[in-house]
């Protein structure tokens, strides 16, 4: 087994999805399903440094031993380029951990709420001028304007 993986799909919980914040490129709530949280651990196979969102491809192994390739959505790469992050910062073969939510079309896609190395270090840390992560972990974060 080249990589360990856990994929956690939730039970169905009916929720009223609240309005996505104005200002983002698109509605996360329309693309991803709040009822399908995932935790992905695996090796990067490809990184697409593209707009409007970068996509990180990760090969994970499920609990029953099956290999799956997931695509994880991230933000615009322009911001990272401006801070000196390059395509060498995240390359195929690196092991990463991602938590997020699966896409509503049930393809192997997810949003990357938190993308780290296996020891928890942020992959894109060390930048300047960034805002807070809008992942609900910081109760003091300001609303998106």
């Amino acid at each position, binding site marked *: 087994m080249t990589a360990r993986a856990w994929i956690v799909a939730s039970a169905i919980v009916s929720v009223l999805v609240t*309005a*996505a914040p104005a200002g983002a490129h698109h509605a996360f709530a329309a693309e991803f399903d709040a009822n399908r949280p995932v935790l992905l651990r695996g090796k990067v196979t490809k990184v697409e440094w593209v707009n409007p969102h970068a996509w990180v491809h990760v090969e994970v192994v499920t609990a029953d031993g099956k290999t799956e390739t997931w695509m994880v959505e991230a*933000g615009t790469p322009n911001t990272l380029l401006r801070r000196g992050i390059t395509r060498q910062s995240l390359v195929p073969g690196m092991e990463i951990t991602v*938590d997020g939510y699966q896409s509503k079309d049930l393809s192997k896609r997810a949003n990357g709420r938190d993308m780290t190395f296996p020891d928890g270090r942020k992959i894109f840390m060390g*930048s*300047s001028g960034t*805002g807070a*992560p*809008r992942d609900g972990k910081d109760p003091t974060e300001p609303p998106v304007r």
Partner: protein
Amino acid sequence: MLVAALLLGVWTSAGAQTSTSSIPRTPDGKPDLQGFWDAATLTPLERPRQGQGKTLTPAEATAIERAAAERRDRGVRPSDPNRKAPPAGGVDSAGGVGGYNGFWVDRGSSVTSINGEARTSIVVDPPDGHVPPFTPEGRARARTRRELANTFDDVEARPLGERCLMSFGSSAGPPALPVMYNNIKQIVQTPDHVMILNEMVHDARIVRMHGPHLPGSIRKWLGDSIGRWEGDTLVVETTNFTNKTFFRGSSENLKVIERFTRLDAKTLLYQFTVEDSTTWTRPWSGEYVWAWSEQPLYEYACHEANYSLEGILKGARRQDADGSAGNVGRPR
């Protein structure tokens, strides 16, 4: 008319305190606005608190900037390596599934400061720092557009930003507002034209100097912009909008006046007034500064890899098929 006179008074006083003798100039003696500019600011469009004044004390400004820096620092701290998947049902206001991580976001690191005054809001008129109320017509139009934004049956019903046709959040404008990232702009200037190129979705605004507006029958997504110099300030008037684009609920009757004043080598003062009597109960104005950027503007190439739009449409199809369509997200 009274409002216009008051606005003129505000701008005149702002300009009077500004020495522009040392700014770069083009060969014909006009202020040289060319270069890369960063419009990011921690100052919000509207004042966060009712009754708050126009300016921040130095201590208040420092506190806002320090809080932003601390949030940034918290954002890059390591996560729990043994964390589980996030909770079912979602975690926050971004539709429950989370938004961008902090490292993808760039709102700048300072509040906007004009003539030494740190500002509480971009809006300066009305004096309470808030966008004036909608007219009944404007309110009804906004409601219709919100309903349309929840339509997933037609790709052309999706917002222009989501379709990579234009930047979101009025990043390019007019008027141009700061958004959560990609706030870099490039100005290119000749005696006859000024171009304002916006990084996000490479929106390019072309301003014709001294020309009359196009006939009313010719409408443009970014409007028809004509420019003139008032002293050392570039004044741009934009009309002839379509009903496909809108600024905070505006109609095709929108008229935008922008004023660009290079205060010094590193600072461009950007001021705007919007008028649309079919949308707001009165005209309103804002101002903030753009900072000189040593970093260039990067290619955007948004459409080519816009998997998100495909995912949104496929997600709605899937929910239609399995009868869970009531759970589709609510975009902006």
